[in-house]
């Protein structure tokens, strides 16, 4: 078996991150009372969502639930991950890892796998209301639903990879969080709003919105006649081009960003700022 596969998947000690994520976010026995309170509230909200969907399943488009899931987890994923690497630096546990014989790829991949496990649990939980709605909603298109689910998951992997990348690049976890939320806010909210307000031409708006996850879900969730994009322009991209291309592009982006994050760790490894205040190079 390829050595890299063994190092990253089979014998990667950093897969302990999966246990740590489970304890931190999905366990009442983590010893942290704040986490327990948050988990209780999340479970109550989840139960409420399932009940609301069950009572309105005929009127609830399952893809609108995927939109809700995507929006919610796009905000929550950076909050869970911003300290993945920057937090290790702040906590001073980073040196212990760097002085050990572990590769940068193993560190980044282990962190990502922890996030992936947590994300998978959250996405699986969302599948319950989505399934309830899909079974009752009269216009459910199962193929579109599958692509919407996969595309949403791939986009959320991008968000995780982006957060890990920033966490690897900066020294403070909150800086990573701010940067990631800022980028997401600009690309997902500000740009579409500007386009909508400015009334840009049809081609520009379609090309720009082609990689916008909510736009994709909007397209997949609408009916096939009189289709309009999110920026109120009649869409000309055929329906079969929504879903799978974005899934592939997002997955590729995630791989690229993780690769970049692994390379970025060199920055922290070789130099630690150690200059007294007042030094011209400090």
């Amino acid at each position, binding site marked *: 078996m390829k050595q890299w596969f063994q190092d990253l998947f089979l*014998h990667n*000690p950093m897969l*302990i991150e999966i*246990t*740590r994520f489970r*304890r*931190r976010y999905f366990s009442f026995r*983590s*010893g*942290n009372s704040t986490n327990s309170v948050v988990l209780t509230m999340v479970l109550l909200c989840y139960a409420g969502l399932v009940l609301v969907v069950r009572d309105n399943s005929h009127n609830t488009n399952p893809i609108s639930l995927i939109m809700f899931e995507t929006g919610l987890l796009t905000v929550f994923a950076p909050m869970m991950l911003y300290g993945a690497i920057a937090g*290790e630096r702040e*906590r*001073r*546990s980073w*040196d*212990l*890892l*760097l*002085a*050990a*014989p*572990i590769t940068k790829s193993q560190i980044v991949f282990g962190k990502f796998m922890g996030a992936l496990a947590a994300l998978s649990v959250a996405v699986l939980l969302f599948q319950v209301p989505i399934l309830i709605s899909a079974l009752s909603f009269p216009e459910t298109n199962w193929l579109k639903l599958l692509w919407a689910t996969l595309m949403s998951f791939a986009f959320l992997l991008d968000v995780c990879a982006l957060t890990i990348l920033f966490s690897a690049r900066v020294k403070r976890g909150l800086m990573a969080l701010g940067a990631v939320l800022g980028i997401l806010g600009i690309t997902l909210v500000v740009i579409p709003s500007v386009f909508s307000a400015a009334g840009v031409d049809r081609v520009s708006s379609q090309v720009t919105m082609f990689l916008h996850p909510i736009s994709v879900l909007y397209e997949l969730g609408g009916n096939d006649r009189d289709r309009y994009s999110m920026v109120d322009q009649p869409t000309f991209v055929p329906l079969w081009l929504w879903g799978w291309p974005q899934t592939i592009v997002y997955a590729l982006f995630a791989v690229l960003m993780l690769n970049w994050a692994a390379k970025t760790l060199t920055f922290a*490894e*070789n*130099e*630690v700022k*150690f*200059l*007294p205040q007042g*030094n*011209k*190079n*400090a």
Partner: protein
Amino acid sequence: MLEVKNLRKEYGGLTAVKGISFNLNPGDIFGFIGSNGAGKTTTIRMIATLLEPTAGTAILNGADIRKDPMAVRRMIGYMPDFFGLYDDVKVWEYLDFFAAIYQVPPKKRTEVIDSVLELTNLTVKKQSFVQSLSRGMQQRLCLARCLVHDPTLLLLDEPASGLDPRARAELKELIAELGRMGKIVIVSSHILPELADFCNSVGIIERGELLAFGPVGQIIKDMQPHRVFAVHFVSDADNASEYVATLPNVLSSQATGHGEVRIEYGGDLDGQADVLTRLIQKGFRVSSFREDSADLEDVFLKLTTGAVN
């Protein structure tokens, strides 16, 4: 064997370590002494492969820190001065994690974890969460982590900081035991009497320069080549001082007040006994006569100026 060769680190215009060299053999416990900012931590971090030296290198059992850092990492256990642990894991999981990183075979891990926990007196905490441990216990856990792969070299940067006196005594005993096990141990500390107790060699560093290196006794002897006695007299100390100065092998004699005379003596033990006998025969009333041997603290204060980079 560890060979440190002309190790140097520059940060911009600042030279933190100015080309230091020393060799250590298995079983050596080396105390690294210096003020804050003297270059101890930078040196230790370079040997730990965390900082790239500007010049020079260190070679551990043939592995060069610059050419083969991964091989060096497999042979070292590094305990930084400030460190954090993972709060949300249990003690055994934390050790298992590092045992996996150091590629301890899965079948041996339980045995290894049990033995390092026993060595560091943490067996009862095996199933506890790391966050529930006291500062002293966390310090011992970090040391246990350093030992899971049976390292050749231990780099302990201020391991006793923040520990209570009992925990310090236990740590001292543990480090001495590691030396007896044949490991090379480098310990940096500010608590000089403690280092003198269990280190068989020390290095004194100031402003990035190694001012002295060698066995504790030898460094002290180099700094104070002759014996010094402090003799207390009931009365007439000034006359006694003048008389002593005339005796053979007495290099200097000085009354320092309160009936005390300090004598620098270059002779052997028999001659030393004769000094006391002749003082008493001469009628001087001696209330105490003791050798005033220098310790590591005296040597450190004599060698260093307190200046930092």
